[in-house]
């Protein structure tokens, strides 16, 4: 789960990281009032779960409260990568001497939290890792000991030669690790970490992703979810415990298992179609789940055909077939449905489906070809 910059900054402040004051505005009036409260120059920043906010015109420097109001009016309602901006962060503008990068994420290869720091801030760290790897210092945190003070200092010393700045940065690195662990994050990033002319180190941007598997034990973090920034169908899927990702094609896919679901989407493309979604319905034959899945898939007006691809293992195919027949009786579906079932008791399942009037297949290729053909009809 991604959280907004302002939410990540709240977590950072709680951990002690110096973050300039800032608050959320939902209207131009609120933005103006905040700018007046802070005094001086402010920055108005779109709060959406997307990179490239600056390039899209979603970040503006306001000289006066009237400017802040005008910029907020421009930015609120703006679309950035398909997401509508509903909130802006109004924050004080800082004088910047230098910009650096500090980030920590779970490294899959090292199987532990790993820091990356670079004196080149305000940049795409992945880009720097490719083009100029010497500009990055990395450190993997041993999960048994956590981040040790001398390790934080070692990272900070790569950023600043000045001992005063390095000392401040060392403290911030330690605080960032704390915020990362206490939030159950998979990634936390300060980009840029700035120095000011009066010798202060501050975090002026913040980014954090939370490990979804942590949310059960961190209700205060789970509350930060902003459902307005995801397609409604994805919210509904999450509430129904279905794994769903909306795409742009016409072939609605309903598959059991994540790997098979991806392979099904790939095969749709192979036969010249485009998948409308990724959807993993899980391993049960429960008609309730099938109903939810069908409602989610058909809420997308682009869907021209629904393709079931189910492997019946522990849950037998005939049970799954009965579940599908039962579910389709409960809701009206206007687009054709094609079904492929394979595995244990597949012959029995085919009979059940054919008796109920469905086109049923055992071959994955045959059913996908058929679905693509129907989507183009």
């Amino acid at each position: 789960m991604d959280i907004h910059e302002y939410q990540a900054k709240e977590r950072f402040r709680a951990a002690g990281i110096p973050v300039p004051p800032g608050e959320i505005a939902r209207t131009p009036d609120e933005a103006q009032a905040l700018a007046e409260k802070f005094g001086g120059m402010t920055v108005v920043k779109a709060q959406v779960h997307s990179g490239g906010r600056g390039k899209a015109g979603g970040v503006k420097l306001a000289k006066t409260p009237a400017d802040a109001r005008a910029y907020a009016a421009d930015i609120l309602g703006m679309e950035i990568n398909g997401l509508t901006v509903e909130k802006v962060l109004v924050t004080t503008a800082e004088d910047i001497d230098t910009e650096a990068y500090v980030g920590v994420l779970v490294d899959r290869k090292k199987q532990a939290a790993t820091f990356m720091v670079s004196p080149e801030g305000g940049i795409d760290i992945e880009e720097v890792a490719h083009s100029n790897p010497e500009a990055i210092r990395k450190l993997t945190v041993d999960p048994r000991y956590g981040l040790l003070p001398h390790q934080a200092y070692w990272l900070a010393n790569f950023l600043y030669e000045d001992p005063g700045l390095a000392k401040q940065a060392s403290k911030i690195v330690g605080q960032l690790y704390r915020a990362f662990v206490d939030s159950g994050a998979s990634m936390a990033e300060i980009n840029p970490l700035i120095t000011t002319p009066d010798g202060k180190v501050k975090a002026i941007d913040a980014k954090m992703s939370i490990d979804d598997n942590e949310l059960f034990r961190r209700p205060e973090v789970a509350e930060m979810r902003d459902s307005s920034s995801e397609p409604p169908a994805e919210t509904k899927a999450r509430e129904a415990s279905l794994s769903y990702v909306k795409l742009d094609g016409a072939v609605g896919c309903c598959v059991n298992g994540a790997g098979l679901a991806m392979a099904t989407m790939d095969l749709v493309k192979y036969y010249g179609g485009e998948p409308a979604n990724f959807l993993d319905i899980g391993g049960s034959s429960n008609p309730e789940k099938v109903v939810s899945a069908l409602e989610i898939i058909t809420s997308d007006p682009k869907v021209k055909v629904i393709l079931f691809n189910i492997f019946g293992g522990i849950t037998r195919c005939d049970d799954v077939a009965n579940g599908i027949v039962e579910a389709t009786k409960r809701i009206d579906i206007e687009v054709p449905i094609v079904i492929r079932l394979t595995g244990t008791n597949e012959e029995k399942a085919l009979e059940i489906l054919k008796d109920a009037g469905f086109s049923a297949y055992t071959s994955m290729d045959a059913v996908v070809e058929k679905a693509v053909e129907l989507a183009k009809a």
Partner: protein
Amino acid sequence: MAIFIDRDTKLVVQGITGRDGSFHTRQMMEYGTQVVAGVTPGKGGQTFDGPDGTTAPIFNTMDQAVAETGANTSVIYVPPPFAAGAIMEAVDSGVDLVVCITEGVPVLDMARAHAFARDHGVRVLGPNCPGLISPGKSKVGILPAQIVKEGPIGVVSRSGTLTYEAVFQLSNVGLGQTTCVGIGGDPLIGTNFIDCLEAFENDPDTTAVVMIGEIGGTDEQEAAAWVKANMSKPVVGFIAGQTAPPGRRMGHAGAIISGSAGTAEEKMKSFEDNGISVAERPADIVGLIQDALG
């Protein structure tokens, strides 16, 4: 022969009294797996009733279960909040292999559990995996036994049903398996592709290997390089997720393209560059294995 589990596997089920744990324990017992004990804290002294009058004693702790029964393998069906703890308890109990089926374990919990297992030299499979099966010998986990068949093919995969798909197709043309291993869909897993490939290379009964990967991470790329350098047996590979958009998690916690890294294209290219035959579709796997075996 087989890898990791065989007829000598003596299994403890952690979470044996839960819904999934009890269901799958019966399935494993029916298949012939030696389930020698179960562990559920607070239920020690009770007895688990398996199929056809078989039973297994239940203990409060892994330590007791291993001491009393000589178990050498554990499988975990406990809920996510307790899974990492269960793994570490199993590692501490002296078993050689710990298989964690549980999906949804916090990643930072797993960072600790994996470090603990490495320190103790104990193999962990998973989490978020279907387990493994050595046809005709033993099954540990949730793989459907009906679709496997004894034979010479090794199968290793990050996925569940996609593996079943491939295994079913192999079995249907008479190509049985030595062992089918599901390594799991999480970002931090214990046993990885290379561990399995190495075991299959050293297993005299395995003649060819099917390797099923997906988007996210670099495990497949490293495995491909390992195959080129170390493997004498043919390997056929498939990668799921060619149409997955970047930055989105495709069901599995580990199936995500981060930035430009971990794409299906990159993995398939790495397979090709290292002499692994790439199946474009799942249906092509069988043909490629037949070609490889001549």
